[in-house]
């Protein structure tokens, strides 16, 4: 089962009784002891590097604390939170930029991954295995290398993308052409292109899911007179909704932390016209170059709350559109 289905199964099987823990027989106690010993590396790591820092991070958000002067830290209550939500225009701008980009890039990325998987699953495709490997290859290109290559491919004069578009008759090359990385209207599309080089995992998972759709369903649909498009819509898509859900959750979480592309391309200075001031960039600047530990922690906690909110929303609404074949409803 996939990760999120297992998560649901664990929730279903969870017994929250502390008393039961003390009512174990000798053999059960031995088993529990060994189980805890085996998971102890993760448990200790979780306590040290997740649980404790999360709590401390919240405490930091109540302080005015600059790392270079730890002795001058002072308790300010919810002042950082008030400043972040009510006073600091950068917070909302950064959130706006992040969501705007997510709304453009997420659908394009997910639809591309699904359609490529359909193509790679077609029984009419020759050399399917070689094709699958080649379509996955860009995902293996290290992100930094991909960004450096794409930044030159997108060059308005010498880049191949504009030269290829020019061949089709649209004026693209040159200073009045398509300036992908300098135009605030095109920049998100340009970043989406770079992102398309990272959809290999999504393609693979979609593909595995498509291969799991029982052929009887297609045969039945075909007898009922459903054409290719109708089958795709009414059979394939419902059957792969668990995978779409899985990719959706991971993509949303990833996009909330979008950082590397704008950082590598222009050091995170927001160029052009502030259109690349992503939330994570703003957090990074506050916490590390400026060393504002208190305010940085506040921004991080706010990001956590937003991410948690979206995840809960997705899981809650998922019940209405995600179809699990094993379930009887």
């Amino acid at each position, binding site marked *: 089962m996939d990760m999120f289905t297992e998560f649901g199964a664990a929730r279903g099987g*969870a017994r929250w009784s502390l008393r039961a823990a003390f009512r174990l027989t000798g053999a059960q106690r031995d088993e529990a002891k060994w189980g805890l010993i*085996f998971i102890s590396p993760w448990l200790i790591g979780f306590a040290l590097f997740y649980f404790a820092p999360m709590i401390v991070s919240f405490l930091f958000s109540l302080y005015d604390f600059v790392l270079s002067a730890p002795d001058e830290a002072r308790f300010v209550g919810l002042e950082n939170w008030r400043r972040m939500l009510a006073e600091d225009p950068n917070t909302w701008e950064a959130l706006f930029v992040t969501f705007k980009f997510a709304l453009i890039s997420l659908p394009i990325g997910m639809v591309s991954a699904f359609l490529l998987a359909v*193509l790679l699953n077609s029984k009419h495709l020759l050399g399917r295995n070689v094709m699958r490997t080649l379509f996955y290859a860009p995902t*293996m290109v290290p*992100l930094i*290398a991909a960004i450096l290559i794409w930044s030159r491919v997108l060059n308005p004069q010498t880049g191949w993308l504009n030269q290829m578009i020019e061949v089709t008759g649209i004026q693209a090359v040159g200073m009045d052409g398509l300036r992908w990385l300098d135009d605030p209207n095109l920049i998100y599309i340009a970043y989406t292109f770079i992102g398309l080089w990272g959809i290999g*995992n999504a393609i693979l998972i979609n593909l*595995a899911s498509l291969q799991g759709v029982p052929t009887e369903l297609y045969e039945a649909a075909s007898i009922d007179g459903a054409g290719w498009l109708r089958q795709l819509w009414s059979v394939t898509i419902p059957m792969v909704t668990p995978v779409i859900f899985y990719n959706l959750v991971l993509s949303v979480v990833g996009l909330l932390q979008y950082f590397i592309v704008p950082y590598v391309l222009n050091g995170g200075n927001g160029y052009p016209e502030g259109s690349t001031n992503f939330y994570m960039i703003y957090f990074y600047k506050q916490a590390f170059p400026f060393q504002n530990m208190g305010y940085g922690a506040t921004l991080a906690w706010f990001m956590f709350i937003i991410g948690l909110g979206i995840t809960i929303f997705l899981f809650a609404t998922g019940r209405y559109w995600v179809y699990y074949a094993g379930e009887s409803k």
Partner: protein
Amino acid sequence: MAALQSNTWNEYEIGRRRRNLLLTAAVTLFALAILAIYLMPMAYGVITSLKSKAQTSDPGAPVWPAEAIKFSYEGESYDLLQVPTESGIRHWALVKKGRRASQFIDPANVAAGLIDWEGNWRQLQPVREFAVQWDNYPRAWNTIDFARLLGNTLMYAFITMFGTVAASSCAAYGFARFNFPFKNLLFMIMIGTIVLPPAVTLVPTYAFFVNILGWGGTWLPLIVPAMFGNAYNIFLLRQYFLTIPREMEEAAQIDGAGRIRTFVSVILPQAVPALTAVSLFHFFFAWNDFFGPLIYLAGNRDANPITVGLTEFNGLYSSETQLILAAAVISMIPPLAIFFLAQRVFIQGIVVTGVDK
């Protein structure tokens, strides 16, 4: 009657085959076209990394790596240009430049001496020949000090790979085989950490490592946490361990093997494909890791991994496109090579975490 029937059957069959053939051709050609566009930047990166610096910034230059041809005349070297004349385009060397008119020499007929030509020489294209600048690769390697970046990256990748695989497989075995109080709750928390933004734990962790332990500028803040495993790997290994039949462990225990002995000598040898997949995932993660090294190694350039080194190089030498692309191509060779060699295990591992089967 029978003959007629078989005849229409044949026609039906031939029609079906023809339609299938057409469909196969159409689908395959379509896929190839998409693939060509999708991989175009890769070809661009490789080809441009083999060009001269002058060519990378010249929009009129050909797509392939090429160099302007020179012609030596009376001890001096001159550019060979494509000169339009009454008898078609001639390849002449430009000897004396002038705004309105210039003087050329015809390499094929040096004895004829200097030829006067009216027009602006700046509008003439040079004569080019195919010339690959292999030299860009050693130059990029040395300028960026790639050996050091590679050493740092490999050190980090291998140390943390062993640590995280060891810790993750222990924890995965615990979750797969044992019952203990709050197991389901702990398992849910573990999966929950996958969707937790790392930023929320980062600030205190950073303050602790850098201010209290004084580990700023070293790799320790990145190595130590990796030694405790990672949720994604634990999940993948647990799924694999669940498929191993319990009988073998029971047999080992009857033979007197303890829990740890059973785990090491019965379970791990059977989980080699999953362990390989997890090791590869971690290797690629480490090869790409950027944010952690960026903040923790700030101020110690000698410790930089490839990712941060490449980014700095791009900032400092932004006009040397050919060198930057050569460095980028070098950095993508190891992951691509490993992927092509080990793709079966690798793909299996990705599929396990995301597909309900």
